[in-house]
């Protein structure tokens, strides 16, 4: 069974790498910086506004805080996968447009090595880039304009290995080593029909790669027989993201018979400073029936050396709140159903035209086990951006499912 899961798992990882390189978002805002960040967590966090710093579970992977892995039940291994579908409506002052998207949110495999040490590894998208926009530019020297259509694609992915170790009865430390990689591409098509018998195409491709290390800490504070508090802290070590930029400029005669490559620069190296992001969360748990958690994250993007022509990277403050209610079931059947909701508010990581790109998501979901599989279904409704001037407001509806396949680690060995 393990072999079966593992081999299918690797096969899935291989095929989805391909899928992730397609456009998985259609937001013009993904043109900025590294793209759209994925912000609603994994597993049950997705239904709770993305909270997770102070949460841990014996039979689910909490990938937000590596220290939580120390609490994994040492008899099981978990294979998790998340899928989601989104419908996003883009609106500016004159036009309204809606698009569908779907993708995998993560794949991971986790297990407890021994009673104190748990680990998990996997892949997940880190950012998404996808847009198809058209802008007007004016010719230098005269008031005439021409249109350029910009098509963006790509996105960074992350491959990670997380470890959590219990250092005392109620405290754990964790570390995640991840490798970020992926392209951010933009194809520009110049429409010069009014002024020339040529057209221009410019293709810019930035390939990013770099290591990131996150350190996590968790502590449980029992308050009595039925109540407990949890505290969690996560921070990443600042580092460097390497970037290789390639650029091609091609001039074509409209009839297609002449093609002239004006510029072909490959892999010009540069690097980006990746700042320290900090997160802190607290949770309150009553008899495992009621749980509430609050997270605060500070993304210090203003320190990244990334300059866009019109948007400024600013520090983003994320406030998340999540609730979980698990009614007690009487009787033999111990399969519990968890009801969850949450919200996630961000002050925005971009400043465009003096407007911060604020966003707000409201989530709700339910989790239930079926035999050895834990299903977490959730829906999230969010909005981002403002309608001032020519900016865009986005409303999106997401429906997702996380599945966690539990396998008894030593089951076969005992009964062979």
């Amino acid at each position, binding site marked *: *069974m393990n072999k079966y*899961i593992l081999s*299918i798992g690797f096969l*899935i990882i291989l095929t*989805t790498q391909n*899928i992730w390189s*397609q*456009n*998985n*978002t*259609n937001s*013009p805002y993904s*043109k900025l910086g590294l793209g759209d960040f994925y912000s609603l967590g994994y597993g049950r966090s997705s239904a709770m506004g993305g909270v997770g710093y102070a949460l841990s579970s014996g039979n689910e992977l909490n990938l937000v805080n590596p220290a939580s892995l120390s609490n994994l039940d040492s008899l099981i291994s978990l294979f998790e996968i998340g*899928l989601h*579908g989104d419908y996003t409506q*883009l609106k*500016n002052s004159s*036009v309204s*447009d809606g*698009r569908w*998207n*779907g*993708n*995998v949110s993560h794949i991971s495999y986790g297990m407890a090595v021994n009673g104190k040490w748990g680990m998990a590894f996997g892949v997940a998208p880190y950012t998404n880039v*996808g*847009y*198809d*926009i*058209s*802008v007007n*530019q004016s*010719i*230098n020297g*005269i008031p*005439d304009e021409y249109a*350029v259509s*910009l098509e963006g694609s790509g996105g960074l992915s992350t491959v990670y290995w997380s470890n959590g170790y219990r250092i005392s009865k109620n405290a754990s430390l964790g570390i995640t080593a991840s490798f970020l990689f992926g392209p951010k591409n933009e194809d520009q098509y110049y429409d010069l029909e009014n*002024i*020339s*018998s*040529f057209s221009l195409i*410019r293709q810019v491709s930035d390939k990013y790669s770099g290591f990131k290390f996150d350190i996590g800490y968790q502590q449980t504070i029992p308050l009595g027989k039925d109540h407990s508090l949890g505290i969690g802290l996560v921070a990443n070590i600042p580092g460097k993201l390497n970037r290789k930029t390639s650029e091609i*400029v091609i001039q074509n005669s409209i*009839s297609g018979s*002449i093609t*002239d490559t*004006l*510029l072909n620069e490959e892999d010009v190296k540069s690097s980006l400073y990746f700042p320290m992001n900090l997160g802190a969360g607290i949770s309150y748990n009553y008899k495992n029936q009621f749980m509430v958690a609050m997270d605060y994250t500070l993304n210090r993007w203003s320190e990244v050396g990334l300059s866009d*022509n*019109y948007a400024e990277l600013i520090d983003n403050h994320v406030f998340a709140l999540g609730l979980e209610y698990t009614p007690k079931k009487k009787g033999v059947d111990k399969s519990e159903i968890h009801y969850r909701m949450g919200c996630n508010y961000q002050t925005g990581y971009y400043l*465009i*035209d003096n407007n911060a790109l604020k966003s707000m998501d409201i989530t709700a979901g339910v989790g239930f086990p*079926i*035999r*050895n*599989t834990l299903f977490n279904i959730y829906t999230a409704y969010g909005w981002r951006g403002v309608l001032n*001037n*020519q*900016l865009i407001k986005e409303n999106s509806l997401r429906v997702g499912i996380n599945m966690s*396949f539990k396998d008894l680690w030593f089951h076969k060995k005992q009964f062979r």
Partner: protein
Amino acid sequence: MKLVRFCMGLLLSTMLIISCSTNDDEAYEIGDVFDNTSSNIFYTDTLTVNAHTVLLDSFYTSGYNKVFVGSKEDDYLGKISATSYIPFGFSTVDPIIDADASFDSLVLVLTPNGEYLGDTSVYRSFAVHELLDTISPFDNGYFYNNTKFAYSTDPLKTKSFRPHPLAHKKIYVSFPELIGQAWMDSIIAGAEEFETSADFQEFFKGIAIVPNDDRDSWSTSFYGLTDDWASGDDATTSLELRLYYTNENADENTFYSFLPSNSAYIFSNFETDYTGTRLAAFNSENDQLSSAETDHLIYLQSGSGLAVKIDIPALDRINEISSNMSILDAELILKPRLNSFDNDNTLPTSFNAYWTDKKNRIGDLLYNVTGEYALTGTLHQDEEFKENTYYSIPILNYILVKASTDEFTDDDLMFIVSSETFSTSFKHMVLEDNAINGSSMQLKLYYVTY
């Protein structure tokens, strides 16, 4: 276990198709707040264009099936007049006339083709002279704009007419009766001159139609041997000498037709008189005048062979504008001088561009960059506001060749109207150069930097 396997299978299959997105075909239009990068497409129109008037070597004016006659005078171009030469011979049958037929008239029939210049309400006059020399071509079979043949001092007949805007309304010029009667008598008598067409051509070498009126500017064109109405059996003859006679006992007269002996021998001769104008500076040693020598004006004149030559000196240094640049489009704007034209069609509607060398020899046509078609200049006429009338011609290929660091050429561009217009009309342009007005002769250049 089964459930898990089932879930895995379902998972695998859905994941292979799940990552999809709907994408509208149209790009999402966004304001420039999302990309206000400065454009890297530039426009400039400050490169100086040098222009010259060139007096071309003679060119042929035969073979256009056209009889062009007229006279023109203005302050810019002085005087020019056009005389046409036509040799005649028998038609397909020899002339046979009954001895007792009576002579009516000998008439030259001309069919206007609708092209004319001048006020159509004013009567013009041309004279028909008999040729004294036989028309014979140069070795290559053509006749040139300055080819002349001697003709009688006194005309056979002078005709007064009004140029008609409609084609095909024939004009009849009656020759003196004495001449016609003499011809008829000779035919009836079987005289030597009328034995064969060659004998006849020896006897009557042909006519020259000479403009007889130099008030104002005017011209008119007649069809050559055939008109454009029909061909084959239905073709009507448009240019002929008709000997009308009435047979005894016949009610109506009949005629014998003398046709042009060789339609390729019909041509126009142009004479110019540039005294009093700046163009008088042309001589056998100097065939090119820069615009500075001609009051900052440049001339193109049909018939006489004046063409416009341009060069743009800054082109060899154009790549200094930016280290990485590519020229996207180039258009040359030429403006005719305001009081040098009326709405009377003196301006040609288009012109061709040729490569030319330092000796002003005409080379290849200027083609577009892909080599698919030749570039031509087009007239943009504003009938209401004459100052908005201008010519434009795309010349990207010329700019790319001259700016290229790989190829080097001394050749420049020459503008001439189409051969037919150049050889059988008075169409002309008087253009202003940069010095008179910055926008009169202007190169509009678009380029991209990267």
